[in-house]
């Protein structure tokens, strides 16, 4: 049974078709990656799944329920949480306030429990808990964005470009943390331009080009595929 299934999703920005007919599935416990270049529709797919962008066609199923018309709030309540592109942390809130905001819809006890897990995964967020989030470095802000999404208690964690703009060493950290998060029982859908690192930790992947899925397979298959090597791995 697929945790998430997109069926023929179409999304428009005005007269521009951003997603032309996207279908894919994410199984429970997987890390699935969407790779593709700028403007391929990766972030739009994430926005469509979370309800930030309305669908012009197609259906989204989550645990076999049609959630196409659900509000973002209802999706968050049911465990679909996005760490958005560009991090979008609350700059004037402290690190701790940001994390607590992530648990907005959950009980205090649930938040405290998850907070401990998040602090174990990202010790830096504990060290800096009283610092205004706007003063963190890019890498720390990214960890905060992921930690904040974790605070929502996701069953399905959506990560949009978690490695964007980060130093190579930090990128490595982020990817190993994503693996840890999966090992803790959270399914992960990842959007990345950094195809090689993403594929290395993924189970399966889909390749997006101009709003369409042009290739799919296990991560190993795609790492070996000529097409992917040429277009996304620079070989």
């Amino acid at each position, binding site marked *: 049974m697929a945790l998430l299934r997109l069926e023929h999703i179409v999304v428009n920005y005005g007269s521009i078709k951003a997603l032309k007919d996207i279908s894919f599935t994410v199984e429970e416990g997987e890390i699935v990656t969407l790779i593709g270049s700028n403007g391929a529709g990766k972030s739009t797919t994430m926005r469509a799944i*979370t309800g*930030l962008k309305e669908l012009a066609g197609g259906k989204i199923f989550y645990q076999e329920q049609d959630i196409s018309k659900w509000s*973002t*709030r209802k999706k*968050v*309540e049911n465990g679909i*949480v*996005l760490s*958005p592109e560009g991090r*979008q*942390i*609350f*700059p*004037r*809130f402290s690190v701790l*306030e940001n994390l*607590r*905001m*992530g648990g*907005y*819809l959950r009980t205090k006890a649930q938040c405290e429990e998850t907070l401990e897990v998040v602090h174990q995964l990202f010790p830096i967020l504990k060290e800096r808990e009283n610092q*205004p989030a*706007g*003063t963190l470095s890019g890498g720390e802000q990214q960890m905060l964005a992921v930690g*904040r*999404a974790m605070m*929502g208690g996701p069953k399905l964690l959506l990560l949009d470009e978690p490695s964007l703009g980060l130093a190579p060493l930090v990128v490595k950290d982020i990817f190993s943390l994503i693996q840890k998060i999966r090992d803790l029982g959270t399914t992960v859908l990842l959007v990345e331009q950094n195809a090689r690192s993403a594929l290395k930790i993924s189970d399966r992947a889909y390749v997006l080009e101009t709003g369409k899925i042009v290739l799919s397979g296990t991560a190993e298959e795609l790492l070996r595929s000529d097409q992917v090597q040429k277009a996304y791995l620079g070989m």
Partner: protein
Amino acid sequence: MFLQQLINGITIGSTYALVAIGYSMVFGVLELINFANGSVYMLGGYLTLMLYTGLVGSFGLSFGLGLLLTALVGYTIDRFGLRRLREKKVPKIAGLITTLGFSQIIENAVRIFFGSETKPYPNMLDFGQVTFGNVTITSSQVIILMISILLMLLTSVTVYRTKMGKAMLAVSQSQEASQLMGINVNGIISLTFMISSILAAIAGTLVGMYYQNIDASMGASVGMKALASAVLGGVGVLPGAMVGGVLMGIFETLGASYISSGYRDAISFAILIIVILFKPSGLFGRKQINKV
């Protein structure tokens, strides 16, 4: 003389502060100046009076109903005037025109339904006065100040200490991120409009009682002063709006008594311009850390 004017200034300034909080809150959440806030202040005063003299007969009940109706007006401005603009991602200037429009509509409606002449207002806060030397403090002044302080405390606690307030602060930093946390962003914005309308309506009623008259043009001048107060204190920071309002009241009364009452508005705005020149973010304003 000075002390007397200071007390008068603090009293009227505390009502400006209530209106200023409304400008500040809405600006904080939407980065939009709600020009209708001054008219809502006037409307609040009128509704209480009209319900009292025309329908209900009990001042307390009229006041309560008046607040409820003004909250509804505040909700309407956002729900039917602004929400659609937000969803369509229309430039902020369009919303500005919308609030200006609502301000005119409210003012005209009051003139049409209640008449444009100045109306006498009953002072329910008059329980006498005390005199120390040449300084007189009336019960109205004490009560107005106490109510204003209480409301400021209540608003501060709501914004900075409750979950709902945290959600407001979150929305003011990023609407999209707030949505992703599961916050009902439109609900929070509606609430902000209702709170700012209620504060303005309470101020309008207090001032009506204090001056014992009310007229439809009072919203425009007080609206400008309260907006100026919010800027003086630092827009988007509640303590700033509060201090700004009280200072504005003090400048104005002192200016009127020591220089000329004809210049009262000019003096307070001159001071405002000077403060902005030297402290552009206002007295309590934060420097921008990060563009949200």
